[in-house]
């Protein structure tokens, strides 16, 4: 019984084995190349950030290239956030004060994840409340979606009532330091105080 059935079944398995082996080798090659590229580009560096086009406080177009030559300290939030965002932005403003002369080489940027309510004018006024250095940026829903994706920022609308303004935004609480070429340097903890942030940023700057 087994003698007659075994050979055909083995021969039919052989091509599967061969193709499987080729597939495995290819997969390893792809993974290996991917890991190599990932490592040589500085780990997660290649995964956070990228070109963006947004709107500044006067409705003017602002891109990542606008800030070349300066470190960017990027924070995502929204102006209808009464609690966490102002707290973090206050510490960012404090960190800029504590950085001393180095602060001139850092551009803190607030990017809204709530473009529906955060017009350029609103974002401009909001940013100005946290000192003269902070720049507020917003954009179309598509522009915000694109920059959030590049910076690996999650955001979602949560309804809190029936009114047009009755919603809050869930959003990744992140603060990223990008280098003068626009490349990712490191995340800065958003729950740190200004002194700690300034120390981290200063240490990461070359």
């Amino acid at each position, binding site marked *: 019984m087994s003698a007659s059935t075994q050979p055909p079944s083995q021969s039919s398995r052989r091509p599967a084995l061969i193709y499987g082996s080729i597939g495995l080798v290819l997969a390893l090659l792809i993974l290996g190349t991917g890991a190599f590229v990932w490592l040589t580009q500085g780990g997660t560096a290649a995964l956070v950030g990228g070109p963006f086009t947004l709107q500044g406080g006067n409705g003017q177009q602002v891109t990542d290239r606008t800030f070349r030559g300066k470190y960017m300290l990027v924070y995502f*939030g929204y*102006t*209808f*956030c*009464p*609690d*966490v*965002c*102002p*707290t973090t*932005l*206050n*510490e960012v*403003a*404090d960190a800029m*004060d504590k950085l001393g002369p180095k602060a001139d080489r850092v551009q803190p940027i607030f990017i809204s994840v709530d473009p529906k309510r955060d017009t350029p004018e*609103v974002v401009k*006024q909001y940013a100005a*409340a*946290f*000192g003269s250095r902070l720049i507020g940026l917003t954009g179309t829903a598509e522009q915000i979606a694109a920059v959030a994706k590049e910076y690996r920022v*999650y955001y979602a609308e*949560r309804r*809190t*009532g029936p009114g047009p*303004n009755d919603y*809050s935004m*869930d*959003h*990744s*609480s*992140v603060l990223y330091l990008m280098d003068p070429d626009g490349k990712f340097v490191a995340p800065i903890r958003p*729950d740190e105080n200004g002194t700690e942030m300034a120390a981290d940023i200063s240490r990461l700057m070359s």
Partner: protein
Amino acid sequence: MKLPLSGLLSSMLVLAPAIATAQGDGIQIENAWSRAAMQGRIGVVYLTIVDHGAADRLTGISSPVAEKAELHESFSEGGVSKMRPVASLAVDKDKPVVLAPGGYHIMLMDLKRPLNQGDAFPVTLSFANTGQVTVQVAVQRPGAAMPMHGSGMPGTKH
């Protein structure tokens, strides 16, 4: 707009005797403060509820400066900042409930007038047993992280 650390510390030193409170039967509201905000936008109120009497429950909030005032809670979940309305908040005897940055706070919606630094405005808290307690809220700078000297002016019970 930054307050030097020494100024902060000295203001904290004199804070305790300067705190006035709004008194309910057993409820006291302390350290009521807010941040400067624009008309038509949103605002925030932080305060501490102290209950020296029977257990009570905060069930509602209102203020003449806002169309609507709600109790909210901020929290972080897997690196994502979230904020949700909270229907009511239990207050137990001698266990102060602190509304502070990064946690419970009162959100003022659709401000009828700007909240300017140095201003004060009333907020009325409704408790299930105590009834209404009104407190004066001191407005600090936009990103203020804690109450400053003179926060929490005398309030009145209705």
